[in-house]
């Protein structure tokens, strides 16, 4: 009897290894007092190194760890989006009270842990690695949401996220067990082959498994009606973490959504397409209607994220390469738009007494044009107006939907976009236009539930380069890819080609 040692593809695993090593190093800085100030820099270094390794692996398509993970362009593109978001979140966390409260080393190590989970999740092609990755992603976020130890909303947000997130995980796990029972394997390709075999197709066990797994994923991606936690958690969490969650979690969840449905469940696409389309439509309506008249910007962005998740889900519904391309393109565009918006929200939160209330950006156009422009572009982009990446993203999605015979969902996207104008444009109006009669209530800023940080912590925040630069760069990217989308289109096309 001879023992065959498994071959380990260190090159393919390099990004994950780099992240893990970096995570440990950052955690160590919490222990050694003189190194404490180096945590953010070390985190950035880790992120940069991982991004470099991922770009080095671009173009490779390798199965890792006996097929539990698969490093392809889809995984790399999603991981890059997550890393970019994390890097911006690190910048936004400079001088963030939450970082001081939990300790810089711990905070950044948890952030890196979540990025590690996302990188793994984007590569997962096995039910076990899928579940482990989603937990690695989620658990650090539960803690980070509650990182603002002295603020009740933050603690509440962490607890809420923990409970709802666990519920989602449990549902997902339960669904996976059904799938395993039906298919007899945890491997995505194996499940596809098993479903393809006669007898299993249409098996209720598989059907229930798919449904429960979809619900669990919908919790993570905040797709209505499994979104109730989103606005509360987004509002309560420290704003840099909200930015990170809004973008990166969504990207990672959609990566595994795509891989799970378009690879493992591809033979049964006829059965899950219509229910997912209904889910997307519900999400579009609920998110857009919920965002109306929200005074808190973070809450509004939370609901808008629910609506945007509905749009993105449309790309999955058609189960085509064009659909996956559209998803990746939209996720990248969405990342730029949201990061620009959140950077401005962070700056105003520290600068004014209004917290994240919409009044915090009132008159921003005259006062701080360098912040007003990014937020304006972000809002116009999210609303899908032309000359922004948001427009091209919607175009991409609608094209995929119409080509995949889901024109009615495209009409839903159009209708949702119309509703969304009624909450995106008032933000623009607050910045540039004279306040209307109702907004001109003078007197001391009454904090009516919408403002987590009551006191301005940093009156000069609007000038800090680490806040202004990310906002400006992200907004510039939104406009650039709105006018010359070709580079981002090619990036997305490679991701889609990796699956089909």
């Amino acid at each position, binding site marked *: 009897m001879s023992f065959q040692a498994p071959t380990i593809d260190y090159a393919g695993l390099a990004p994950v290894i780099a992240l893990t090593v970096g995570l440990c190093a950052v955690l160590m800085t919490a222990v050694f007092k003189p190194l404490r100030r180096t945590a953010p820099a070390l985190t950035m270094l880790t992120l940069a190194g991982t991004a470099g390794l991922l770009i080095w692996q671009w173009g490779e398509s390798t199965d890792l760890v006996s097929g539990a993970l698969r490093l392809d362009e889809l995984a790399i593109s999603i991981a890059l989006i997550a890393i970019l978001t994390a890097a911006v979140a690190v910048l936004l966390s400079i001088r963030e009270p939450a970082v001081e409260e939990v300790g810089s080393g711990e905070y950044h190590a948890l952030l890196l842990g979540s990025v590690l989970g996302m990188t793994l999740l984007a590569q997962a092609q096995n039910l076990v690695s899928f579940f482990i990755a989603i937990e690695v992603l989620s658990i650090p976020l539960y803690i980070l949401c509650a990182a603002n130890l002295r603020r009740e909303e933050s603690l509440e947000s962490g607890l809420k996220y923990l409970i709802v997130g666990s519920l989602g995980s449990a549902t997902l796990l339960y669904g996976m067990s059904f799938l395993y029972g039906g298919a007899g394997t945890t491997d995505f390709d194996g499940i596809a082959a098993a479903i393809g075999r006669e007898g299993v197709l249409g098996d209720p066990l598989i059907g229930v498994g798919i449904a429960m797994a979809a619900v669990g994923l919908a919790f993570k991606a905040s797709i209505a009606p499994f979104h109730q936690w989103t606005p509360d958690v987004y509002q309560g969490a420290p704003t840099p973490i909200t930015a990170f969650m809004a973008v990166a979690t969504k990207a990672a969840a959609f990566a595994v959504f795509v891989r799970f449905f378009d690879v493992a469940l591809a033979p049964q696409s006829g059965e899950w397409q219509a229910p997912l389309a209904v889910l997307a439509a519900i999400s579009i309506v609920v998110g857009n209607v919920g965002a109306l008249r929200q005074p808190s910007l973070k809450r509004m962005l939370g609901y808008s994220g629910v609506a945007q998740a509905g749009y993105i889900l449309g790309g999955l519904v058609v189960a085509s390469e064009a659909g996956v391309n559209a998803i990746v393109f939209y996720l990248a565009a969405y990342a730029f738009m949201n990061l620009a918006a959140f950077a401005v929200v962070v700056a105003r939160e520290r600068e004014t007494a209004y917290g994240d209330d919409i009044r915090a950006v009132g008159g921003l*156009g005259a006062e701080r044009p360098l912040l007003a422009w990014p937020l304006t572009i972000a809002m116009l982009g999210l609303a899908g107006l032309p*000359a922004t990446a948001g427009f091209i993203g919607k175009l991409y999605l609608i094209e995929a939907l119409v080509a995949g015979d889901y024109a009615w969902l495209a009409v839903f996207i159009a209708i949702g976009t119309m509703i969304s104008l009624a909450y995106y444009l008032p933000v623009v109006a607050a910045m540039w236009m004279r306040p209307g*009669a109702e907004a001109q209530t003078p007197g001391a800023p009454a904090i009516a539930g919408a403002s987590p940080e009551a006191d301005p912590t940093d009156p000069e925040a609007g000038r800090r380069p680490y806040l202004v630069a990310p906002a400006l760069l992200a907004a510039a990217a939104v406009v650039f890819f709105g006018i010359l989308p070709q580079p981002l289109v090619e990036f997305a096309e490679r991701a889609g080609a990796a699956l089909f």
Partner: protein
Amino acid sequence: MTNSLLWTPLAFGIVGLFLPKRATGWWAVLGAAVTLGLAVALLAGFDSGASGLQSTVEAKWIPELGVDYSLGVDGLNLFLILLTAVVWLGGTAFAAFRDQDRPHLFFLMMLLGETATLGAFLAQDLLLFVLFFDLMLVPFYFLFGAWGSDRAEGPSASAATLKMIVYTLIGSLLMLVGAIAAAVIAADGGQLTFSIAALVEQGLGEGSQRWIFWLFAAAFLVKMPAFLLHGWMPDAYRAAPLAALVVFSGVLAKVGAYGFLRVVLPLFPDATVEFQEVVLAIALASILYGSAMAFTQTNVRLIAGYSSVAQLGFITAGIFALRADGADGAILQMVNHGLVVAPLLVIVAILAERSGSEDLREMGGMAMRAPVLAALFLIVTLATLAMPGSANFIGEFYILNGLFQEKIVFAIVAISGVAMAAFYALRLYQRTMHNRKPEGIESREIDWRDGVVLAPLVACILALALYPQLILKRTDRSVQQAVAAVSDKQPSKAVARR
């Protein structure tokens, strides 16, 4: 050439951001003037004998999605481009003579608006057209919302603007879906393209035409605005800053009418024939409703606004006569109306400055010491009511002629609109310029600044009155082509031809 025409305004606007505040206005005027120069050069180089597009620009933009950057000029858009350049120069100059709050942003938005509008006229790719059509909204959102004025009656400026944007975007987002659906269905699994010419060649099934037609028609009818879809118009007109309203009313409404000729007739001929009478009914309702409102309103801006509803109704009726003379008249009338409504609004602004009110009841007797203003106003008024001898008369004649031969009942109703136009135009003139002068209003001659803005616009009206062939000669060929696609589908004519 076409490229530089399109991007010159925006380039001037961006450079203007870095100039001192006092200079931005005049820099923007220079930009608009250069654009006008380029547009005139385009006219000079236009070969009226050639068929098809001229001065084309073709480049791949997003090949994966089948979107090209393709521009071109033909008889349909040549004079609308010229109109855009003329009216924008007038509007920008009008604004430059007055102090603007935050001038950098104001003139950037004005010039961005010009680029977007020119883009919508020039685009020969369906998606590019939709993109520019939507893009037009962005600058006007800022212009109306940030520089508009809150009125005692009606909602605040930003609320009125939001209403306008939501109304118009409802149309244009559905149009985006329609454009994509048209391309995907026409491609039928093959190479996807949005090129209008290629789509016309590929053709669409009758069933798809039927619903996509309405997605486009809704967008264009809201933009005009047509009756029942005009809900945004009164509030927006009341709130808008005048310089922006001049170009908005003068040019943007025509993009909708132009869209019918450029996109709807060639792409959806079956549906066009099928729904001809529905659209004609909407057009007639717009004429009647717009006219009736125009002679009951007392706010001078709204008189201009509602008269535009009526005039655009005429233009739509001309297009949907589905005959070459009707469409010829429609194009001529689009240019005419742009040239008339722009000076009309400038005069309205001047009158409002004098009387401190925009209410007709508080005006009067302005002509006493202002013969030049009165003369200019009279010319504009007579052109508005389509006095024989004016180009508007010829435009309306062509439209009615086309309509008479096609749908005589509709034509008879439309004629009443001509009579009503005389009523509301003369009412506006009399109530402001004649009658007894109320206390506290000064009758003063216009100063040279307003004269410089008004006189060239009025000169254009006169020039066109003398030589309307300038337009008709060059448009006829393209119009024939646009209408030919539809007239083949009409049962009556197909039989007659046999």
